[in-house]
Structures are given as C-alpha cells and as structure tokens.
C-alpha cells in the first residue's frame, strides 16, 4: 500500500462530485435532507415551543437522519463500480487503491457538507429569534459533519463488499445502527450485569451518540475529534483491504 498522491485523489474526487450533480442523486438527496431536517426540528424537536435560541432540536435528530440517508449515498460508491465494470478501468489507471478510496470518500463527505451548509436558514432563523451562541452552533455543525464522515466510511466499506447496491445499503444501515446504539441503555443493559467496567466503557465509548453529543454541546474535546478521525480511518483502511483482497481473489 503506497501513500496517496494528491493529484490522483483529487482527480477521483472531482469526478465523483461532478457525477453526483450529473444525476438526480444529488438533488433528490439535498431536497429530502432539507425537508427531513425541517420536519424533525420543528415537529419532533419542538423548536418554537422550547423558547430557547439554540439548534439543539435541529442537531438532535441528525444521527437518525444519517442512519438512512448516508448509506443511501454510500451504497453506490463501490457497488456501482463492480456492477458496471468501471472498477477494472479505475484500477488499471496509474493510481493506488488508497487514492481511489480517499477520493470517493472525500467527494461524498464534501457533498454531505454541502447539504449541511444548505441548512443555513435554520441558523439565520435562530439568530433572528434570539441571541444564539454561535460558537455552540458551529461546534454542532462540525460534530454533525464528523459523524456523517463516520457513517460514510462504514457505508463505503460495506459498498466495497458487494456489487448489489441494496445489499450495500442494508449492511451499512445495520453496522451504522450498531455503532449508534452502542452507548444507549438498551445495549448497555445487555452487558451491565456481567461485563467488567472497562469493557462497558469501551462499548459506550464507541457510540457515535456520545461523541456527537459532547461536541454539539460546544465542547470540542480533542478526544472526540480523534475518535471520529479514528473511526473514519479504520473503516477506510478496511475498505482498502477489502478491495485489495478482491483483486487477489
């Protein structure tokens, strides 16, 4: 495995990103993402009724939204390449598997970043209604984007295992779900009675929820950042290994 070359990674990223906007995928995703965040914030989050000028009702539902929307983006990343045979073209170009994996991941991550940025009316609204703590809101956006990266890395890896996008989607949702839930009582109760504290902490520490909640409170702790970087790194590494294994198979 060799180091990624900036030129090749960037080239793959640019191709992917243009690809999103050449098909309805981008527009359908953006509209659904914006509508869903709106519904969650105002109906389930009781944005107005709370009477607090923050975006907590907005961010609170992001993990659940990503659980389904991010795999919808990531499912085609590699499955489509396998199905259409373009993977053979891609991997006989003078670029490394790392270049391709990073390029695709970054394109999808940037795309979700664009979707997040387009929720700016929410930020304007909350600033119009009261004096919001914009530092906390910025932290929320950062945390949300990092969490999306984690979901995306899992989805990208799952997508590399199959040529079927539906299979890739379901696998991604299941694995992402496990990562989300690992900190919740319903999972923790299973272990509480018998597992030692260190394992409990380990399982709880894996949860997207906890780290996202920490960051979106406005406390940008290095440990939370490192956590997401590690999660992304781990799954992308697995992604590279799976692709290389398939070449040798």
């Amino acid at each position: 495995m060799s180091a990624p070359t900036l030129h090749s990674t960037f080239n793959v990223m640019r191709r992917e990103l243009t690809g999103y906007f050449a098909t309805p995928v981008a527009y359908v995703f953006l509209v659904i993402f914006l509508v869903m965040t709106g519904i969650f914030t105002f109906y389930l989050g009781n944005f107005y009724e709370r009477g607090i000028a923050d975006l907590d009702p907005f961010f609170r539902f992001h993990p659940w939204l990503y659980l389904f929307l991010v795999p919808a983006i990531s499912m085609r990343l590699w499955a489509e390449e396998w199905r259409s045979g373009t993977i053979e073209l891609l991997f006989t170009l003078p670029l490394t598997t790392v270049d391709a994996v990073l390029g695709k991941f970054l394109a999808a991550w940037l795309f979700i970043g664009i979707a997040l940025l387009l929720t700016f009316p929410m930020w304007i609204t909350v600033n119009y209604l009261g004096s919001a703590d914009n530092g906390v809101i910025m932290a929320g956006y950062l945390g949300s984007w990092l969490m999306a990266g984690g979901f995306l890395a899992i989805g990208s890896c799952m997508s590399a295992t199959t040529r079927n996008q539906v299979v890739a989607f379901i696998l991604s949702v299941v694995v992402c779900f496990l990562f989300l839930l690992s900190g919740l009582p319903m999972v923790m109760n299973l272990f509480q009675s018998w597992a030692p504290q260190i394992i409990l902490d380990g399982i709880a520490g894996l949860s997207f929820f906890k780290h996202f909640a920490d960051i979106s409170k406005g406390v940008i702790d290095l440990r939370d950042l490192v956590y997401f970087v590690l999660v992304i790194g781990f799954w992308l590494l697995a992604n590279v290994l799976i692709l290389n294994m398939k070449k040798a198979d």
Partner: protein
Amino acid sequence: MIEARSLCKRYGAITAVEDLSFTVEAGQILGFLGPNGAGKSTTMRMLTGFLTPTSGEALINGIDISRNTVEASKHIGYLPEGAPSYGEMTVVQFLTFVGRARLINKADLPASVEKAIQKLNLVAVAHQPIETLSKGFKRRVGLAQAIIHEPQILILDEPTDGLDPNQKHEVRKLIRAMAKDKIIVISTHILEEVEAVCNRVMIIAGGKLLADDTPHGLVARSRYRNSVTMKIAGAERVASILSELPQVAKAELRDGELTLFPALDHGLFEAITDAISEHDWDVSALRLEAGRLDEVFRTITRQGTSS
C-alpha cells in the same frame, strides 16, 4: 516488452489460467484467440494488474505489475471487456478524467483529448453523456481512453465487439497504424480479425496455451493446405476418376463442392486442370486452398480441451 512467467489463476477448484508463459516484443500485434471462457480476459486482467495471479508474474517493461502496479500501468493503455465507462459523464469529461489520471500535463490535456476524439471519430458525440450513446460509440470511447496517453503497450479486450463492418474496418486500420513500435495485444473470437490485424496468434482454450504462431503459420497447419476445391456437374463420377491420379490422396464431397487433397508436395492443381481439359468437364468454380483458419482453430481447441 511484456513478459509472462508461468501465470496461473485459480478460483477455488476452478483453474481459469494455467501456467501461461510468453513474451511480446515491440512491433508485435498479438491476438489471443479462443472460445468464450478460455481465459483470455483473465490473462489480460493479470497483465494489466487488475487481478493478482495465484502464482507466476507478469513483467511490463521489466516491472512486476502486481508489485508495482502504478509504475507498470503507466506504460499500458487498456480496454477492459465490455468497454466500461462512467455513463453519466460526457465523452469529453470522461476522456479528461482518464487523461488526468494518466498524468498528462495540464497544458497538453485538451489537445490529447481532442486527438483521441478525432482518431476514433467521436466528434459528433463529444458532448453527449456516454450512457446515451450506441454500443459502437461506447466501444470507441473505450478505445479512445486506452490510447489517450499514447502508451507503448496497448491491451484491448475484444476491441471490435459490437461494431458494424465499417467501424470494424476503421478500428482495425487504426490498430495497424499504431502498431509500428508498439506492443498491441488484442483478444477476439473472430477468426478473420486475427488474419486482418495480427502478426502473431496465441490460441488459448481451457486456460492453456495451445498454439503460438503467425496467422500464416496457423493457416498452413490446415489439412486443406494446398488442396483443390471445385464446383462441378456430376461430382461423384469426377471424384472417382480423379482419385485414380497419383497426385490425389483423397477426394471429399461436401455441400456440393468437391475437395481433393494432395498426395505430393506439388503438382495437384496442374494435374487437375489437365484432367478437366482432357475430359472437357463443366467446372463452375475452381480454387487452390491456402488453408482454413476456422478448421485449424476447431481442431486445436478440441484436441486441447479434451486432453
């Protein structure tokens, strides 16, 4: 130079390619000829580094492609089976992407794209999404991306599949024109293509190399070599008369045509024309056979796969 050393590829219990060794030098246009599922594509995938061989190695200008894929693949232009491409991109966008990936200078890139488009007659569809194009155009887009960086080695998996006769002719002309100081490897199951384009043929079946020869040499292996075939009235009576000649080894009647096989190295054609004028037979067609490639191909692949 391409050098394959004991290439093997196994999928579980199935052996797709077995102990394949060969070298290809500059100036050669090598045709992989074989029935479907013979291992042609698998071999090409190992030569281009898409598949890692189970054992053995492929060297591209001395570089092991499965160890140093990036370096080795810079020398290669490759058209994968089925000419895959990113359908949502236009021809220009796609070729620009491949050109960038092929590390063509930013300044030279537009000219390279333009040149590839010209060479494969893609001007009319240059700004259309590839998925809206016909099969023939898609194949030419695949060829354009393979030659865009003017590689020294071209590996083309069924380059003329899905093209109409005119387009086939054009592509073959293009391949021959590029061949001078290059290495070109094509795979095909079309026999006439081998005769039209290649100066070397490898017949592969069941993952094994069964023959490695020039097209001319292969044709010469035909049992029809130097035989004489004619269309004649009363063929059965003629056959029995001609069988008596010392130059004739055997007479065969098939599809209303009479074929006479030579017993000696030469003299068959003259003996027959003499006999025709002597008996004043009514001959509607008469030809000396160079050999039949399809018959050689069938014989070799049948022997090879049954053994």
